[in-house]
């Protein structure tokens, strides 16, 4: 009986360990295959040159530039709003109030809405309603803002990444010791002064983590920009807010499914995937390091 018990136990523990091992093995396999597939083509020239011969050769500079522009504009919109929402939730709202709980539920819902829905919303709200409205009012119906462009794509993406910022900043604000706040208040500082001089500087690393995680998410998402601004191929870089742009993830999707010569461009696809993976990987790693330092400090 005892031996049978022991064998069952070993089998059970073995199964759980095998599951964990399987996940890690698949992750390593994915990384290795993409690195091997992409390392031949990957070079400095690949990163800094334009596509040539109808995207059959050449680099991916416009896609990198477009992605960078997208995440910068997205952060400008998402980080301040996310930070302020986090400040409200931690400093002003009481934990049990109906309003705070509703906001929390909204934030969590926002985090679970499928990304394609944000794309639909961007199309229906930003492009058709806001953009179309701007065209009618300012340009007399001439089509300029009522079509996909980088501004609407960034704003759509900022809605998607808002919850990421809120959650990270909230955690950081909670890590600011209560004594510091109390000291500030005891010295005669008002609530707003305390927030401005103590809470926000104290949670700077959290705001940083939130921004990095949001950028990493925004750089990798493709579904929201499929029809709000990403372009298949552009000969020039976007120069104004009403221009379309190229994007790394969209580039991978187009090259691997919509192009006529999928096999010939395979090295380019792997190299582009490698670039995107490295980008998100490094961003996530930085965020994890900052966050673990923050958590250690909080203890």
């Amino acid at each position: 009986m005892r031996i049978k018990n022991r064998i069952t136990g070993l089998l059970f523990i073995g199964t759980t360990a095998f599951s964990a091992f399987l996940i890690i093995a698949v992750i390593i396999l994915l990384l290795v295959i993409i690195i091997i597939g992409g390392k031949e083509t990957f070079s400095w020239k690949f990163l800094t040159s334009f596509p040539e011969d109808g995207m059959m050769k050449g680099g991916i500079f416009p896609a990198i530039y477009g992605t960078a522009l997208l995440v910068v504009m997205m952060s400008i919109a998402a980080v301040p709003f996310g930070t302020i929402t986090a400040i409200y939730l931690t400093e002003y709202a009481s934990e049990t109030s109906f309003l705070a709980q509703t906001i929390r539920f909204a934030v969590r819902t926002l985090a679970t809405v499928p990304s394609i829905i944000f794309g639909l919303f961007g199309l229906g709200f930003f492009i058709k309603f806001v953009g179309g409205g701007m065209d009618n009012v300012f340009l007399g119906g001439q089509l300029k803002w009522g079509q996909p462009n980088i501004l609407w794509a960034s704003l759509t993406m900022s809605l998607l990444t808002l919850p990421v910022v809120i959650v990270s900043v909230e955690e950081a604000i909670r890590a600011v010791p209560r004594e510091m706040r109390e000291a500030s208040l005891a010295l005669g500082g008002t609530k707003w002064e305390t927030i401005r001089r103590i809470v926000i500087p104290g949670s700077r690393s959290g705001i940083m983590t939130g921004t990095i995680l949001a950028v990493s998410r925004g750089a990798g998402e493709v579904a929201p920009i499929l029809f709000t601004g990403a372009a298949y191929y552009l000969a020039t870089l976007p120069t104004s807010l009403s221009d379309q742009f190229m994007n790394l993830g969209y580039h991978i999707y187009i090259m691997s499914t919509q192009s006529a010569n999928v096999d010939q461009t395979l090295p380019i696809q792997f190299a582009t995937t490698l670039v995107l993976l490295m980008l998100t990987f490094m961003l996530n790693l930085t965020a994890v390091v900052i966050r673990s330092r923050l958590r250690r400090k909080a203890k």
Partner: protein
Amino acid sequence: MDSSIENTGFVFSKESLRKKFRWSEFLSEKIITGVAFLSITIIILIFFFVFRETLPIFKQKKETVTIESVQKQEQYGGAETSEQTNASGQEQYGVISKDTMMIENRVMTEDTVVHGSDEATVKSLMGKEWLPVSDRPRYGLIPLLVGTMKITLLAILFAAPIAILAALFSAAFATHWMREIIKPAIELLAGFPSVVIGFFALMVMASFFQNIFGYDIRLNAFVGGMAMALAAIPIIFTITEDALTAVPHSYTEASLALGASRWQTALFVTLPAATPGIFAAILLGIGRIFGETMIALMATGNAAMISANPFESVRTLAATIGAEMAEVVFGDTHYSVLFLIGSLLFVFTFCLNALAEFYVKGRLVKRFQGK
């Protein structure tokens, strides 16, 4: 001490202790509260605008219904309408007579030719064919729903056991250094863009599984399901692990003290105590798979057909939006139907989230508080 206060001339009174009104305080509080409403506003706006673009379908439905009923009253056209459906039924099979049948159809419904196409749209929503770009567009959602469910089922059947077992390993059996590897690795997987997973599935997994199982169609529901499982595993793992570590120590200690071994404690005490949390994890995993667009677009083959075979191509709801929205004319029926699909996706994931939130989490807390 008393005298020093008197010397400065400062006296505490009701007046001096009252909170002063400051504009900066007032404004900052109001602005911060206002901004905090933003996330609620966004949710409401998403609801509103995604549904708004869907509405034209239902408006047209009302019109056509009234027209139809009027016709019936005047001409007793019961026989004629049945003939019409007959004709359209044959049209799919008839090869030579196809064109003539179509013409007959047009002639018969000449008066309502504009509404006729819309009528067909609304009727075809429940149909078994998704052919949005054809002479007679058909928008049957059934194959898309079946495809989505097939993928979701396959992915969750694979992802849930693996993620839950791995979480159990990490929470109950793993040593400290193992946990230091597993958790960042899962976090890393969670950070992979779905387009990267889709690309991996398209280029590597599809060929790999084809070599093993020897099926004909390279991109199919099985490949898509496996790739989706990769996307769902981090969510299920993280929430399950949280639920497992939240089980009070007194539970496990009591079990160990009564002579149970570690694996018995994990399997018969910790795991059952965390079931509501695990249930929530699976629900959120389903939500993720259901709405996943890029993997579905790249790895499932995108053919709208109804079949139970996991090795046939499927087309999911989300992938349909992603593939077709860029090519439709703003405001036409196809456009509205795609928004209808979006509304379905949104409502479904919203309900899943609400269920996981209120029902499951509430129960978990109550159980640990011993109520």
